[in-house]
């Protein structure tokens, strides 16, 4: 920085002759401005300047933390300015250079200042790395052990002591994170399993209720005409409470119609018809096939991962069902044709799971989807039931038996949907497919408790096989970051 153009040109040429690059500023104001926008290694500063003189520039420069570390060499005529040089050095100038200098002197002064600057830069970088380690320690202290959150990978790759420290940090964090991840997965599995059991217990009532209702003289279409409005009504109620209704688009309607045909009409027809000929416990055992079918679809569509362990689990479950079917057909206790028709029930349920997971239109939420589907089912079933003459009334006489069972059937469907949506959302379709096993177990138990059905020892063995299959299928990870509650805090105790 120099107000004298001849001196500026001389200094620039002298510095460039030594192999450096140089920028000139015609006064203190311009020089300070340049220093805030560009990076400089050293400053050659004239003292006598109009406006801001060299002392003013030094004072401003040293009070700005962003540039105060840049070394300043004061350029001064020695004859009558020695006091000025002393003052400049007191203000923070690194060195001085007489105006009439030899090239070697400029080189020596510049080299010394640049060496100091380099050392200072290294020091700053070192402090910055310590800051990053401190930040990482704070992240660890807040209970976040994901090594990616620490962001120390580049530091850890260095060979110096700080790099070693970063490696240790990352290593310990990674170890704890893996451990916590496993613990969380165990808890998730446990929680998911409880939902699986709850759904099984509720939905497992279906075969027994179907058998009871048919023996009470109900007709499949007439029954649907009673149950469907109850289910639809409840879901419309929930939608009203939530204030969200599904948009009436052709896509939504087409999906709801297909779903209604599959999961209301076909499912009820097959379930109710076969329940007249197949025992509730055997019907329940057949339901296990749903799990294998969902797994097959999911793996084929790539929506869930097909690990050997899961495959093994589902195959073990399938083997259990096969065992049951074999004892029934071999024993001749069940009509083989109705047993084969009953096999459609798990297929229909599997198609439903896959429809909901893979083909549901965007913008159609869980509640809205069931609401629209039940309405579609009612539109299809009502005229059919009247044409077929399958309608029946609930009177004071049959309200106690038929009426209660109808309400129970609707309740079972409502509960199964609500719990099923929650489970699919939190644990995935494959984990949900395990409900087929609990539905089976619960269905058999309900059959024994409500209908006094008896199962062969072989069928009980099949249960054990099915439970093993359930254990082998794990839920999918939800990928959320784990934050661990810390029991101690180093700085809060001080």
């Amino acid at each position, binding site marked *: 920085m120099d*107000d*004298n*153009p*001849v*001196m500026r*040109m*001389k200094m620039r*040429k*002298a510095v*460039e*002759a030594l192999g450096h690059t140089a920028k000139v500023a015609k006064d203190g104001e311009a020089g300070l401005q340049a220093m805030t926008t560009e990076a400089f290694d050293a400053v050659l500063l004239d003292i*006598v*300047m*109009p406006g801001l003189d060299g002392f003013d520039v030094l004072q401003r420069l040293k009070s700005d933390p962003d540039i105060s570390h840049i070394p300043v060499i004061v350029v001064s*005529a020695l*004859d*009558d300015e020695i006091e000025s040089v002393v003052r400049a050095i007191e203000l923070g100038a690194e060195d001085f250079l007489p*105006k*009439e*200098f*030899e*090239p070697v002197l*400029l080189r020596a002064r510049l080299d010394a200042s640049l060496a100091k600057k380099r050392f200072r830069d290294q020091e700053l970088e070192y402090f910055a790395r310590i800051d990053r380690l401190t930040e990482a320690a704070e992240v660890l202290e807040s209970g976040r052990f994901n090594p990616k959150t620490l962001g120390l990978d580049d530091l850890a790759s260095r060979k110096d002591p700080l790099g070693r420290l970063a490696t240790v940090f990352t290593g310990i964090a990674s170890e704890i994170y893996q451990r916590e991840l496993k613990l969380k997965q165990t808890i998730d599995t446990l929680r998911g399993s409880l939902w699986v059991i709850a759904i099984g217990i509720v939905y497992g009532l279906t075969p027994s209720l179907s058998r009871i209702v048919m023996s009470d003289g109900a007709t499949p279409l007439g029954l649907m005409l009673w149950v469907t409005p109850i289910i639809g009504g409840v879901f419309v109620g929930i939608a009203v409470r939530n204030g969200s209704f599904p948009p009436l688009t052709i896509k939504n309607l087409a999906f709801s119609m297909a779903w209604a045909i599959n999961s209301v009409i076909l499912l009820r027809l097959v379930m109710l018809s076969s329940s007249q000929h197949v025992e509730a416990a055997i019907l329940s055992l057949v339901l296990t096939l749903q799990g294998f079918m969902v797994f097959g679809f999911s793996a084929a569509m790539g929506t869930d991962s097909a690990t050997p362990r899961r495959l093994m689990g589902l195959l073990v479950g399938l083997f259990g069902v096969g065992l049951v079917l074999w004892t029934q057909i071999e024993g001749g206790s069940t009509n083989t044709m109705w047993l084969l028709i009953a096999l459609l029930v798990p297929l229909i349920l599997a198609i439903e799971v896959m429809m909901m997971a893979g083909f549901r239109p965007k913008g159609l939420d869980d509640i809205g989807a069931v609401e629209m589907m039940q309405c579609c089912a009612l539109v299809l079933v009502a005229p059919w039931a009247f044409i077929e003459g399958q309608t029946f009334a609930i009177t004071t006489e049959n309200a106690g038996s038929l009426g209660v069972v109808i309400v129970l059937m609707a309740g079972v469907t409502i509960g199964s949907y609500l719990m099923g949506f929650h489970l699919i959302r939190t644990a995935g379709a494959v984990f949900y497919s395990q409900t087929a096993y609990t539905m089976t177990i619960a269905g058999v138990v309900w059959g024994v408790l409500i209908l006094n059905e008896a199962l062969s020892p072989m069928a009980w063995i099949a249960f054990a096989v099915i439970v093993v299959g359930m254990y082998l299928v794990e839920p999918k990870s939800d990928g959320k970051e784990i934050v661990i509650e810390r029991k101690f805090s180093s700085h809060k105790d001080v």
Partner: protein
Amino acid sequence: MSDLLDLDALKRLLDVIGGEAEDFDELRDEFIETSPDLIETLQQAAAHTDLDAMRVASHSLKGNARDFGATALAELSAALETACKSGDVDGAIQLLSQVTEAEKAARHALLSIEASNLG
């Protein structure tokens, strides 16, 4: 060549800026071009008795004169700077006319100087 200029100073200047004749000639032209501006500044400051502005301008002129070996101009400029610092208005005005003459002489002398003659 002129007796007004110290050739050793000029050689040192050439050395300092890296020894390239082209650079030297450019710097010399800058001196020849800007020196009259400094004299102009001095005269205007003198008209307003602005001793501080005179001090800064004479300081620049002194430095340039020393670099280019204009010994007489350098000494007169240094004396002018000292007079300004001590607040000697009459002395400063008196010195200014001498400085003006010396600057003109030095500038003319420099016109005939080329880097190739210094080697």
